């Protein structure tokens, strides 16, 4: 059904569940997974899964990018454990929704699979979550997992 799937990874439990769903879908088509991380300065210190730990609010962009690369590496390992061979990590910058939409378009993916509420969305209850913006702005299929 989908030969290429974009999975935004922010270290939240939701993004991990989304990765599992994406792997299940990709595996059947021998599909390709594109894992995308967008470093964000969060107003709080979130708890991250995959053993990376929380990133202090005052961390530099460079530090957050390093953490992002670690996160993508672990997510990639998990995807390979779940049977997906073609996994490509991608680090982007800027507004998360914009970065996700640009990456989806640029790489011509057939679907985006993402958690319905990421780490950055605790502040997003009023302005709308990233997944909400992505699902309305994307030209491909968007599958959200909560």
């Amino acid at each position, binding site marked *: *059904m989908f030969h290429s799937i974009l999975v935004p990874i922010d270290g939240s439990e939701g993004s991990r569940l989304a990765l599992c*769903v994406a792997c*299940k879908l990709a595996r059947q088509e021998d599909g390709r997974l594109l894992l995308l991380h967008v470093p964000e300065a969060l107003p709080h210190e979130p708890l991250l899964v995959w053993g990376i730990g929380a990133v202090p609010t005052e961390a530099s962009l460079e530090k957050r990018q390093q953490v992002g690369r670690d996160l993508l590496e672990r997510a990639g390992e998990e995807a390979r454990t779940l049977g997906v061979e073609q996994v490509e990590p991608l680090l982007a910058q800027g507004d998360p929704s914009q970065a996700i939409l640009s990456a989806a378009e640029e790489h011509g993916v057939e679907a985006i699979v993402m958690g319905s509420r990421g780490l950055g969305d605790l502040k997003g209850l009023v302005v709308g979550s990233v997944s909400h913006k992505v699902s*309305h702005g994307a030209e491909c*299929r968007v599958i*959200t997992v*909560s």
Partner: protein
Amino acid sequence: MFRSLLVPVDGSSHARKALSLACQLAGQRETFLLLLHIPEALPHSPPLVWGVGRQAVDASRETRDRQAHELVDRAAEEARDLGATHVEALVQHGDPTRTILEVARARDVDAILMGSRGLSDLRGLLTGSVSHKVSHAAECSVITVH
């Protein structure tokens, strides 16, 4: 990953996409698919997949019940065509959001998989779509297809 999936079907093209994704996730594994249809009398005549199910407001109760069963039976047939082996078709009456949540709880499903916007959601732009409400209130995972 998921042993049982609840898929609400209302005859919209969104529900059809959700069903095909559910079959994909069910794969060859022993995943149980529970298809739920909740007949609604709609103030408009929506374009429908699965041919039947348009509910004229003035149709008799028996006519509507028969159409509801026809719709969910055709959806079940389609699921089997797509490779699902354990499929059950269910018709329930009531408020869509509440009924979906009740069935999910009563049957203890691992996840609910649904289209982001169903037929009744054309009027739901202000009050929030059924999928939005379900994803916030459900105790299990909710996968939304947009």
